Protein backbone atom coordinates (compact mmCIF):
# COMPACT_ATOMS: atom_id res chain seq x y z
CA UNK A 1 0.00 0.00 0.00
CA UNK A 2 1.17 3.53 -0.61
CA UNK A 3 0.41 6.44 1.72
CA UNK A 4 -2.95 7.05 0.07
CA UNK A 5 -3.87 3.43 0.81
CA UNK A 6 -3.65 2.27 -2.80
CA UNK A 7 -2.24 -1.13 -3.63
CA UNK A 8 1.29 -0.97 -5.04
CA UNK A 9 2.27 -3.33 -7.85
CA UNK A 10 5.92 -4.29 -8.09
CA UNK A 11 7.22 -5.17 -11.53
CA UNK A 12 10.46 -7.09 -11.81
CA UNK A 13 12.51 -6.76 -14.99
CA UNK A 14 13.44 -10.33 -15.98
CA UNK A 15 14.90 -9.41 -19.39
CA UNK A 16 15.52 -5.82 -20.36
CA UNK A 17 14.70 -5.82 -24.09
CA UNK A 18 16.92 -3.87 -26.51
CA UNK A 19 16.26 -0.40 -25.08
CA UNK A 20 13.43 0.02 -22.61
CA UNK A 21 13.02 3.41 -20.94
CA UNK A 22 10.54 5.13 -18.66
CA UNK A 23 8.84 8.02 -20.49
CA UNK A 24 5.73 10.15 -20.37
CA UNK A 25 3.81 11.59 -23.28
CA UNK A 26 4.74 15.26 -23.07
CA UNK A 27 8.29 15.48 -21.69
CA UNK A 28 9.83 18.77 -20.52
CA UNK A 29 8.85 21.79 -22.54
CA UNK A 30 9.86 24.56 -20.16
CA UNK A 31 13.63 24.25 -19.83
CA UNK A 32 14.85 24.44 -23.40
CA UNK A 33 16.33 27.89 -22.80
CA UNK A 34 18.59 26.00 -20.36
CA UNK A 35 19.48 23.45 -23.04
CA UNK A 36 17.21 20.69 -21.72
CA UNK A 37 15.57 18.67 -24.54
CA UNK A 38 11.83 18.00 -24.49
CA UNK A 39 12.22 14.22 -24.37
CA UNK A 40 9.26 12.03 -23.49
CA UNK A 41 7.76 9.34 -25.73
CA UNK A 42 9.14 9.38 -29.29
CA UNK A 43 5.62 8.45 -30.43
CA UNK A 44 3.55 10.53 -28.01
CA UNK A 45 0.26 9.62 -29.70
CA UNK A 46 0.79 5.90 -29.03
CA UNK A 47 1.91 6.60 -25.46
CA UNK A 48 -1.26 8.59 -24.81
CA UNK A 49 -3.38 5.82 -26.31
CA UNK A 50 -1.68 3.15 -24.18
CA UNK A 51 -2.37 5.21 -21.06
CA UNK A 52 -6.02 5.75 -22.01
CA UNK A 53 -6.55 2.02 -22.54
CA UNK A 54 -5.75 1.33 -18.89
CA UNK A 55 -7.64 4.37 -17.60
CA UNK A 56 -4.55 6.50 -16.87
CA UNK A 57 -4.19 10.16 -17.68
CA UNK A 58 -2.42 10.82 -21.00
CA UNK A 59 0.88 11.81 -19.40
CA UNK A 60 1.27 8.95 -16.89
CA UNK A 61 4.70 7.30 -16.67
CA UNK A 62 4.96 4.22 -18.90
CA UNK A 63 7.55 2.11 -20.74
CA UNK A 64 8.86 2.87 -24.21
CA UNK A 65 10.04 -0.33 -25.91
CA UNK A 66 12.58 -0.30 -28.73
CA UNK A 67 12.87 -3.02 -31.44
CA UNK A 68 12.33 -5.82 -28.91
CA UNK A 69 10.57 -5.48 -25.58
CA UNK A 70 11.35 -6.71 -22.07
CA UNK A 71 10.10 -9.63 -20.00
CA UNK A 72 8.40 -8.50 -16.80
CA UNK A 73 7.04 -10.29 -13.74
CA UNK A 74 4.18 -8.73 -11.77
CA UNK A 75 4.01 -9.38 -8.02
CA UNK A 76 0.39 -8.23 -7.79
CA UNK A 77 -2.58 -8.24 -10.16
CA UNK A 78 -2.37 -5.39 -12.66
CA UNK A 79 -3.97 -4.03 -15.81
CA UNK A 80 -1.70 -3.47 -18.82
CA UNK A 81 -2.02 -2.29 -22.44
CA UNK A 82 0.41 -2.41 -25.35
CA UNK A 83 0.30 0.02 -28.28
CA UNK A 84 2.58 -0.77 -31.22
CA UNK A 85 3.15 -3.92 -33.22
CA UNK A 86 5.37 -6.17 -31.12
CA UNK A 87 4.65 -9.82 -30.44
CA UNK A 88 3.66 -10.23 -26.81
CA UNK A 89 2.30 -12.83 -24.43
CA UNK A 90 1.03 -13.00 -20.87
CA UNK A 91 1.74 -16.34 -19.17
CA UNK A 92 2.22 -17.85 -22.62
CA UNK A 93 -1.08 -16.65 -24.09
CA UNK A 94 -1.12 -14.06 -26.89
CA UNK A 95 -1.37 -10.42 -25.75
CA UNK A 96 -2.38 -8.37 -28.78
CA UNK A 97 -1.87 -4.60 -28.82
CA UNK A 98 -4.74 -2.15 -28.56
CA UNK A 99 -6.74 -3.43 -25.58
CA UNK A 100 -6.39 -3.49 -21.80
CA UNK A 101 -5.49 -6.87 -20.38
CA UNK A 102 -5.30 -8.31 -16.86
CA UNK A 103 -2.14 -9.81 -15.40
CA UNK A 104 -2.35 -12.08 -12.34
CA UNK A 105 -0.11 -11.92 -9.31
CA UNK A 106 3.08 -13.68 -10.37
CA UNK A 107 2.16 -13.23 -14.04
CA UNK A 108 4.88 -13.10 -16.70
CA UNK A 109 4.59 -10.58 -19.53
CA UNK A 110 6.93 -11.20 -22.46
CA UNK A 111 7.36 -8.79 -25.38
CA UNK A 112 9.40 -9.68 -28.44
CA UNK A 113 9.98 -8.06 -31.82
CA UNK A 114 7.48 -6.85 -34.36
CA UNK A 115 6.82 -4.54 -37.26
CA UNK A 116 7.25 -1.35 -35.21
CA UNK A 117 10.54 0.05 -33.94
CA UNK A 118 8.76 1.48 -30.89
CA UNK A 119 5.84 0.40 -28.75
CA UNK A 120 4.41 1.51 -25.41
CA UNK A 121 3.41 -0.52 -22.39
CA UNK A 122 1.11 1.24 -19.94
CA UNK A 123 0.29 -0.14 -16.50
CA UNK A 124 -2.94 0.79 -14.75
CA UNK A 125 -2.21 3.53 -12.21
CA UNK A 126 1.01 4.51 -13.96
CA UNK A 127 4.60 3.84 -12.95
CA UNK A 128 5.67 5.54 -9.75
CA UNK A 129 8.63 7.74 -10.72
CA UNK A 130 9.95 11.00 -9.26
CA UNK A 131 9.54 13.81 -11.79
CA UNK A 132 12.57 16.00 -12.52
CA UNK A 133 12.07 19.40 -14.16
CA UNK A 134 8.40 18.58 -14.50
CA UNK A 135 8.63 15.19 -16.19
CA UNK A 136 9.51 11.56 -15.51
CA UNK A 137 11.05 11.18 -19.00
CA UNK A 138 14.42 9.42 -19.19
CA UNK A 139 17.13 11.58 -20.79
CA UNK A 140 19.71 8.98 -21.80
CA UNK A 141 22.26 11.46 -23.14
CA UNK A 142 22.46 13.57 -19.99
CA UNK A 143 21.64 10.65 -17.70
CA UNK A 144 18.71 11.89 -15.64
CA UNK A 145 14.99 11.23 -15.26
CA UNK A 146 13.16 7.91 -15.32
CA UNK A 147 15.15 5.21 -13.53
CA UNK A 148 18.53 6.84 -12.71
CA UNK A 149 18.64 8.34 -16.21
CA UNK A 150 19.24 4.99 -17.88
CA UNK A 151 17.53 2.18 -19.74
CA UNK A 152 16.07 -0.72 -17.74
CA UNK A 153 18.28 -3.67 -16.81
CA UNK A 154 17.48 -7.19 -15.69
CA UNK A 155 16.89 -7.17 -11.95
CA UNK A 156 15.40 -3.66 -11.82
CA UNK A 157 12.20 -3.32 -9.85
CA UNK A 158 9.52 -0.81 -10.83
CA UNK A 159 6.48 0.24 -8.85
CA UNK A 160 3.03 1.14 -10.13
CA UNK A 161 0.07 2.41 -8.17
CA UNK A 162 -2.82 0.11 -8.92
CA UNK A 163 -5.79 2.16 -10.09
CA UNK A 164 -9.48 1.75 -10.64
CA UNK A 165 -9.33 3.46 -14.07
CA UNK A 166 -11.73 2.13 -16.69
CA UNK A 167 -10.10 -0.32 -19.14
CA UNK A 168 -10.76 0.07 -22.86
CA UNK A 169 -10.14 -1.24 -26.35
CA UNK A 170 -9.07 0.91 -29.29
CA UNK A 171 -11.36 0.78 -32.34
CA UNK A 172 -9.81 3.55 -34.47
CA UNK A 173 -7.67 3.31 -37.60
CA UNK A 174 -4.07 4.33 -38.18
CA UNK A 175 -3.03 6.50 -41.09
CA UNK A 176 -0.74 5.04 -43.69
CA UNK A 177 0.52 6.46 -46.96
CA UNK A 178 3.32 8.97 -47.38
CA UNK A 179 4.75 10.91 -44.43
CA UNK A 180 3.32 14.42 -44.78
CA UNK A 181 5.59 17.46 -44.58
CA UNK A 182 5.15 21.22 -44.63
CA UNK A 183 7.76 23.79 -45.70
CA UNK A 184 10.46 24.65 -43.19
CA UNK A 185 12.38 27.94 -42.92
CA UNK A 186 14.79 26.96 -45.73
CA UNK A 187 12.47 25.48 -48.38
CA UNK A 188 14.81 26.22 -51.30
CA UNK A 189 16.69 23.03 -50.56
CA UNK A 190 13.48 20.99 -50.26
CA UNK A 191 12.96 20.06 -53.88
CA UNK A 192 14.14 16.45 -53.93
CA UNK A 193 12.54 15.36 -50.61
CA UNK A 194 9.21 14.34 -52.15
CA UNK A 195 10.57 12.98 -55.42
CA UNK A 196 12.02 9.66 -54.38
CA UNK A 197 11.59 7.09 -51.64
CA UNK A 198 13.96 7.16 -48.68
CA UNK A 199 15.22 4.46 -46.38
CA UNK A 200 15.67 4.71 -42.60
CA UNK A 201 19.39 4.48 -41.86
CA UNK A 202 21.08 2.54 -39.08
CA UNK A 203 21.59 5.78 -37.15
CA UNK A 204 18.08 6.08 -35.80
CA UNK A 205 17.57 6.90 -32.14
CA UNK A 206 15.37 9.00 -29.89
CA UNK A 207 17.11 12.20 -31.03
CA UNK A 208 16.58 11.68 -34.72
CA UNK A 209 16.20 9.36 -37.68
CA UNK A 210 18.82 9.65 -40.40
CA UNK A 211 17.69 8.81 -43.91
CA UNK A 212 19.54 7.06 -46.71
CA UNK A 213 18.76 7.97 -50.29
CA UNK A 214 19.66 10.66 -52.79
CA UNK A 215 21.92 13.31 -51.32
CA UNK A 216 20.25 16.69 -51.02
CA UNK A 217 22.19 19.69 -52.17
CA UNK A 218 21.31 22.63 -49.95
CA UNK A 219 21.80 26.32 -50.55
CA UNK A 220 23.63 26.81 -47.25
CA UNK A 221 25.80 24.37 -45.36
CA UNK A 222 25.15 26.05 -42.01
CA UNK A 223 22.63 28.55 -40.70
CA UNK A 224 22.59 30.48 -37.39
CA UNK A 225 21.56 28.21 -34.47
CA UNK A 226 17.79 28.18 -34.04
CA UNK A 227 15.23 26.31 -31.95
CA UNK A 228 14.12 23.04 -33.53
CA UNK A 229 10.48 21.94 -33.36
CA UNK A 230 9.52 18.27 -33.34
CA UNK A 231 9.70 16.81 -36.85
CA UNK A 232 12.15 19.37 -38.26
CA UNK A 233 14.13 17.77 -41.12
CA UNK A 234 17.72 18.98 -40.83
CA UNK A 235 20.12 18.58 -43.74
CA UNK A 236 23.77 18.57 -42.63
CA UNK A 237 26.59 19.10 -45.16
CA UNK A 238 26.70 15.38 -46.05
CA UNK A 239 23.24 15.77 -47.63
CA UNK A 240 21.56 13.01 -45.57
CA UNK A 241 18.39 14.39 -43.96
CA UNK A 242 17.72 13.82 -40.25
CA UNK A 243 14.15 13.90 -38.90
CA UNK A 244 14.29 15.32 -35.38
CA UNK A 245 12.46 13.38 -32.65
CA UNK A 246 11.81 13.80 -28.90
CA UNK A 247 15.43 13.88 -27.66
CA UNK A 248 16.61 16.31 -30.37
CA UNK A 249 18.99 19.03 -29.18
CA UNK A 250 17.12 22.25 -28.41
CA UNK A 251 18.84 24.14 -31.22
CA UNK A 252 20.41 23.21 -34.53
CA UNK A 253 22.56 24.96 -37.10
CA UNK A 254 21.76 23.13 -40.33
CA UNK A 255 19.16 24.14 -42.93
CA UNK A 256 15.63 22.81 -42.38
CA UNK A 257 13.82 22.49 -45.73
CA UNK A 258 10.72 20.84 -44.27
CA UNK A 259 8.95 19.69 -41.12
CA UNK A 260 7.07 16.40 -40.64
CA UNK A 261 3.52 17.24 -39.54
CA UNK A 262 2.50 16.51 -35.95
CA UNK A 263 -0.02 13.86 -36.99
CA UNK A 264 2.68 11.79 -38.74
CA UNK A 265 5.74 12.14 -36.46
CA UNK A 266 4.72 9.11 -34.39
CA UNK A 267 4.78 7.03 -37.57
CA UNK A 268 8.38 8.15 -38.18
CA UNK A 269 9.27 7.07 -34.62
CA UNK A 270 7.82 3.61 -35.35
CA UNK A 271 9.94 3.04 -38.48
CA UNK A 272 12.71 0.46 -38.20
CA UNK A 273 16.16 0.85 -39.77
CA UNK A 274 15.84 -0.31 -43.40
CA UNK A 275 12.15 0.64 -43.70
CA UNK A 276 11.18 2.67 -46.75
CA UNK A 277 9.26 5.94 -46.57
CA UNK A 278 7.98 8.60 -48.93
CA UNK A 279 7.20 12.24 -48.29
CA UNK A 280 4.23 14.27 -49.54
CA UNK A 281 3.99 18.06 -49.22
CA UNK A 282 0.84 19.45 -47.64
CA UNK A 283 -0.35 22.88 -46.48
CA UNK A 284 -0.32 23.93 -42.82
CA UNK A 285 -4.14 23.86 -42.97
CA UNK A 286 -4.08 20.20 -44.02
CA UNK A 287 -1.53 19.55 -41.27
CA UNK A 288 -3.82 21.06 -38.65
CA UNK A 289 -6.87 19.11 -39.78
CA UNK A 290 -4.75 15.91 -39.75
CA UNK A 291 -3.85 16.73 -36.16
CA UNK A 292 -7.52 17.09 -35.26
CA UNK A 293 -8.27 13.76 -36.94
CA UNK A 294 -5.43 12.07 -35.00
CA UNK A 295 -6.99 13.49 -31.82
CA UNK A 296 -10.37 12.02 -32.79
CA UNK A 297 -8.79 8.61 -33.51
CA UNK A 298 -7.21 8.70 -30.06
CA UNK A 299 -10.68 9.07 -28.58
CA UNK A 300 -12.08 6.09 -30.54
CA UNK A 301 -12.29 3.81 -27.51
CA UNK A 302 -14.71 1.10 -26.57
CA UNK A 303 -14.96 0.94 -22.79
CA UNK A 304 -14.68 -2.52 -21.25
CA UNK A 305 -16.49 -3.63 -18.11
CA UNK A 306 -13.24 -5.25 -17.08
CA UNK A 307 -9.89 -5.91 -18.69
CA UNK A 308 -9.80 -9.10 -20.71
CA UNK A 309 -8.63 -11.89 -18.43
CA UNK A 310 -6.74 -14.78 -19.99
CA UNK A 311 -8.74 -17.49 -18.21
CA UNK A 312 -11.93 -15.84 -17.25
CA UNK A 313 -12.70 -14.00 -20.47
CA UNK A 314 -14.57 -10.85 -19.56
CA UNK A 315 -14.98 -11.68 -15.89
CA UNK A 316 -14.51 -8.74 -13.59
CA UNK A 317 -11.77 -10.16 -11.46
CA UNK A 318 -10.06 -6.81 -10.91
CA UNK A 319 -11.33 -3.66 -9.35
Amino acid at each position, binding site marked *: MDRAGRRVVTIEVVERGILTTIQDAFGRRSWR*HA*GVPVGGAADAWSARLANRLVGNNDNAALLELTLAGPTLRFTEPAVVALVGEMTASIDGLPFPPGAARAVRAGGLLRIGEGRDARAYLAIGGGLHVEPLLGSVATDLRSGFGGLDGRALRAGDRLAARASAGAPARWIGVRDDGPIRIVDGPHPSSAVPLTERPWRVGEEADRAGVRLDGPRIRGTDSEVPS*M*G*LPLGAIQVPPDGRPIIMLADRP*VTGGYPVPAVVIGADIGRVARLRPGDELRFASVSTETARSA*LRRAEDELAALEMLDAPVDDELGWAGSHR
Partner: protein
Amino acid sequence: MSRVRPFGEGAFLVGVDGPEAAQGLRRALVAEPIDGVIGLVPGRYSLLVEFDALIADATALEAELASRSPMPDAASRLRRIPVVYDGPDLADVAALVGLSEAELIEAHATGEHRVLFVGFAPGFAYIGGLPEGWRIPRLATPRTRTAAGSVAVADGMTGIYPADLPGGWRVIGRTPVTLFDPRRTPPVHLEAGDQVRFRPISPEDWERWTGPGAEW
Protein backbone atom coordinates in the same frame (compact mmCIF):
# COMPACT_ATOMS: atom_id res chain seq x y z
CA MET B 1 9.38 44.84 -35.84
CA SER B 2 10.02 41.14 -35.84
CA ARG B 3 9.89 38.89 -38.84
CA VAL B 4 7.53 35.97 -38.22
CA ARG B 5 7.64 32.81 -40.36
CA PRO B 6 5.76 29.53 -39.89
CA PHE B 7 7.96 26.60 -38.79
CA GLY B 8 5.65 23.62 -39.19
CA GLU B 9 1.92 23.76 -38.40
CA GLY B 10 2.53 24.31 -34.69
CA ALA B 11 5.34 26.87 -34.49
CA PHE B 12 6.60 30.24 -35.65
CA LEU B 13 10.21 31.30 -36.02
CA VAL B 14 10.48 34.96 -35.03
CA GLY B 15 13.54 36.62 -36.54
CA VAL B 16 15.39 39.09 -34.27
CA ASP B 17 18.63 41.09 -34.34
CA GLY B 18 20.73 38.83 -32.14
CA PRO B 19 20.94 36.54 -29.12
CA GLU B 20 20.10 39.27 -26.61
CA ALA B 21 16.95 40.23 -28.50
CA ALA B 22 15.99 36.53 -28.71
CA GLN B 23 16.36 36.18 -24.93
CA GLY B 24 14.54 39.49 -24.39
CA LEU B 25 11.61 38.41 -26.54
CA ARG B 26 11.42 35.16 -24.59
CA ARG B 27 11.34 37.17 -21.35
CA ALA B 28 8.55 39.33 -22.75
CA LEU B 29 6.48 36.25 -23.67
CA VAL B 30 7.08 34.69 -20.23
CA ALA B 31 6.10 37.92 -18.45
CA GLU B 32 2.97 38.39 -20.57
CA PRO B 33 2.06 34.97 -21.96
CA ILE B 34 -0.11 34.44 -25.04
CA ASP B 35 -2.83 31.77 -24.75
CA GLY B 36 -1.96 28.56 -26.58
CA VAL B 37 1.82 29.13 -26.62
CA ILE B 38 3.49 26.01 -25.22
CA GLY B 39 7.21 26.40 -25.99
CA LEU B 40 9.83 29.15 -26.37
CA VAL B 41 13.34 28.40 -27.64
CA PRO B 42 15.82 31.26 -28.17
CA GLY B 43 18.36 30.88 -30.97
CA ARG B 44 21.10 33.13 -32.23
CA TYR B 45 18.91 35.36 -34.46
CA SER B 46 15.50 33.91 -33.71
CA LEU B 47 12.98 32.78 -31.14
CA LEU B 48 11.06 29.57 -31.82
CA VAL B 49 7.48 29.92 -30.56
CA GLU B 50 5.54 26.64 -30.38
CA PHE B 51 1.78 26.63 -29.93
CA ASP B 52 -1.02 24.12 -29.54
CA ALA B 53 -2.25 23.87 -33.13
CA LEU B 54 -5.54 22.32 -31.93
CA ILE B 55 -6.65 25.39 -30.01
CA ALA B 56 -4.58 28.44 -31.06
CA ASP B 57 -5.64 30.83 -33.81
CA ALA B 58 -2.45 30.86 -35.88
CA THR B 59 -3.27 34.05 -37.78
CA ALA B 60 -4.00 36.04 -34.62
CA LEU B 61 -0.90 34.59 -32.93
CA GLU B 62 1.30 35.58 -35.88
CA ALA B 63 0.07 39.18 -35.67
CA GLU B 64 0.48 39.26 -31.89
CA LEU B 65 4.06 37.97 -32.12
CA ALA B 66 4.96 40.57 -34.73
CA SER B 67 3.83 43.31 -32.34
CA ARG B 68 5.86 42.16 -29.32
CA SER B 69 9.20 43.74 -28.36
CA PRO B 70 12.09 42.24 -26.39
CA MET B 71 12.08 42.96 -22.67
CA PRO B 72 15.44 44.12 -21.30
CA ASP B 73 17.26 41.97 -18.74
CA ALA B 74 16.63 43.49 -15.31
CA ALA B 75 19.89 42.54 -13.64
CA SER B 76 22.81 40.78 -15.23
CA ARG B 77 24.61 38.49 -12.80
CA LEU B 78 28.35 38.07 -12.60
CA ARG B 79 29.45 34.43 -12.47
CA ARG B 80 33.08 33.60 -11.67
CA ILE B 81 34.25 30.33 -13.16
CA PRO B 82 37.47 28.85 -11.72
CA VAL B 83 39.57 27.15 -14.41
CA VAL B 84 42.67 24.98 -14.39
CA TYR B 85 44.21 25.95 -17.73
CA ASP B 86 45.77 22.60 -18.64
CA GLY B 87 43.56 21.40 -21.49
CA PRO B 88 44.82 19.08 -24.23
CA ASP B 89 44.33 21.75 -26.93
CA LEU B 90 45.88 24.67 -25.00
CA ALA B 91 49.12 24.67 -27.02
CA ASP B 92 47.29 24.35 -30.36
CA VAL B 93 44.92 27.20 -29.54
CA ALA B 94 47.85 29.41 -28.43
CA ALA B 95 49.57 28.70 -31.75
CA LEU B 96 46.36 29.42 -33.72
CA VAL B 97 46.04 32.90 -32.19
CA GLY B 98 49.79 33.60 -32.18
CA LEU B 99 50.33 33.80 -28.42
CA SER B 100 52.31 31.90 -25.81
CA GLU B 101 50.27 29.64 -23.53
CA ALA B 102 50.73 32.10 -20.64
CA GLU B 103 49.55 35.01 -22.81
CA LEU B 104 46.53 33.03 -23.96
CA ILE B 105 45.54 32.22 -20.36
CA GLU B 106 46.04 35.86 -19.36
CA ALA B 107 43.86 37.06 -22.25
CA HIS B 108 41.10 34.54 -21.56
CA ALA B 109 41.06 35.15 -17.79
CA THR B 110 41.07 38.95 -17.97
CA GLY B 111 38.45 39.20 -20.70
CA GLU B 112 34.82 40.11 -20.08
CA HIS B 113 32.55 37.35 -21.29
CA ARG B 114 28.80 37.02 -21.55
CA VAL B 115 26.45 34.04 -21.99
CA LEU B 116 24.74 34.38 -25.38
CA PHE B 117 22.49 31.35 -25.11
CA VAL B 118 22.34 27.86 -23.64
CA GLY B 119 21.89 24.88 -25.92
CA PHE B 120 23.48 21.72 -27.39
CA ALA B 121 23.06 19.95 -24.03
CA PRO B 122 21.50 20.85 -20.66
CA GLY B 123 23.60 23.63 -19.14
CA PHE B 124 25.97 24.04 -22.12
CA ALA B 125 26.44 27.83 -22.29
CA TYR B 126 27.65 29.56 -25.44
CA ILE B 127 29.77 32.35 -23.94
CA GLY B 128 30.77 35.28 -26.15
CA GLY B 129 33.69 37.58 -25.52
CA LEU B 130 36.87 36.11 -27.00
CA PRO B 131 39.13 38.84 -28.43
CA GLU B 132 38.24 39.98 -31.96
CA GLY B 133 40.47 38.33 -34.48
CA TRP B 134 40.92 35.01 -32.68
CA ARG B 135 40.17 32.53 -35.44
CA ILE B 136 39.65 29.18 -33.75
CA PRO B 137 37.94 26.59 -35.94
CA ARG B 138 36.40 23.48 -34.42
CA LEU B 139 38.39 20.25 -34.49
CA ALA B 140 38.28 18.62 -37.92
CA THR B 141 37.38 15.34 -36.21
CA PRO B 142 35.26 15.86 -33.10
CA ARG B 143 36.13 13.88 -29.97
CA THR B 144 33.70 11.09 -29.15
CA ARG B 145 33.99 12.15 -25.50
CA THR B 146 34.84 15.50 -24.00
CA ALA B 147 34.95 15.29 -20.21
CA ALA B 148 32.44 17.07 -17.97
CA GLY B 149 33.85 20.42 -16.84
CA SER B 150 36.00 20.92 -19.95
CA VAL B 151 36.41 24.61 -20.81
CA ALA B 152 36.68 24.84 -24.58
CA VAL B 153 36.81 27.46 -27.33
CA ALA B 154 35.63 27.65 -30.95
CA ASP B 155 33.97 30.10 -33.33
CA GLY B 156 34.66 33.18 -31.17
CA MET B 157 33.07 31.64 -28.07
CA THR B 158 33.88 29.72 -24.91
CA GLY B 159 31.80 26.69 -23.94
CA ILE B 160 31.86 24.50 -20.85
CA TYR B 161 30.84 20.84 -21.13
CA PRO B 162 28.25 20.09 -18.41
CA ALA B 163 28.57 16.31 -18.87
CA ASP B 164 30.75 13.82 -20.74
CA LEU B 165 29.68 14.51 -24.32
CA PRO B 166 30.97 14.21 -27.86
CA GLY B 167 32.37 17.55 -28.99
CA GLY B 168 34.42 19.44 -31.53
CA TRP B 169 35.48 22.44 -29.43
CA ARG B 170 39.12 22.87 -28.45
CA VAL B 171 39.68 22.20 -24.75
CA ILE B 172 41.91 24.71 -22.96
CA GLY B 173 41.05 23.91 -19.35
CA ARG B 174 38.66 22.42 -16.80
CA THR B 175 36.39 23.72 -14.07
CA PRO B 176 35.06 21.94 -10.98
CA VAL B 177 31.77 23.88 -11.15
CA THR B 178 28.61 21.81 -11.70
CA LEU B 179 26.90 23.33 -14.75
CA PHE B 180 23.73 21.22 -14.73
CA ASP B 181 21.85 19.56 -11.88
CA PRO B 182 18.25 18.54 -12.65
CA ARG B 183 17.43 18.58 -8.92
CA ARG B 184 18.23 22.29 -8.59
CA THR B 185 15.96 25.18 -9.61
CA PRO B 186 17.07 26.57 -11.95
CA PRO B 187 18.94 23.45 -13.03
CA VAL B 188 21.75 25.38 -14.74
CA HIS B 189 24.61 27.47 -13.31
CA LEU B 190 24.88 29.77 -16.33
CA GLU B 191 21.95 31.48 -18.01
CA ALA B 192 21.71 33.72 -21.04
CA GLY B 193 22.76 37.26 -20.19
CA ASP B 194 25.09 36.29 -17.33
CA GLN B 195 28.46 38.06 -17.28
CA VAL B 196 31.28 35.56 -16.90
CA ARG B 197 34.85 35.96 -15.56
CA PHE B 198 37.26 33.06 -15.72
CA ARG B 199 39.68 32.77 -12.79
CA PRO B 200 42.86 30.67 -13.12
CA ILE B 201 43.26 28.12 -10.33
CA SER B 202 45.84 25.41 -9.69
CA PRO B 203 45.20 21.67 -9.98
CA GLU B 204 45.41 21.58 -6.15
CA ASP B 205 42.59 24.14 -5.93
CA TRP B 206 40.57 21.94 -8.29
CA GLU B 207 41.16 18.90 -6.05
CA ARG B 208 40.07 20.88 -2.99
CA TRP B 209 36.89 21.99 -4.78
CA THR B 210 35.95 18.41 -5.49
CA GLY B 211 36.89 17.20 -2.03
CA PRO B 212 34.52 15.88 0.67
CA GLY B 213 31.16 17.63 0.63
CA ALA B 214 31.47 18.83 -2.95
CA GLU B 215 28.82 17.94 -5.44
CA TRP B 216 30.77 15.51 -7.57
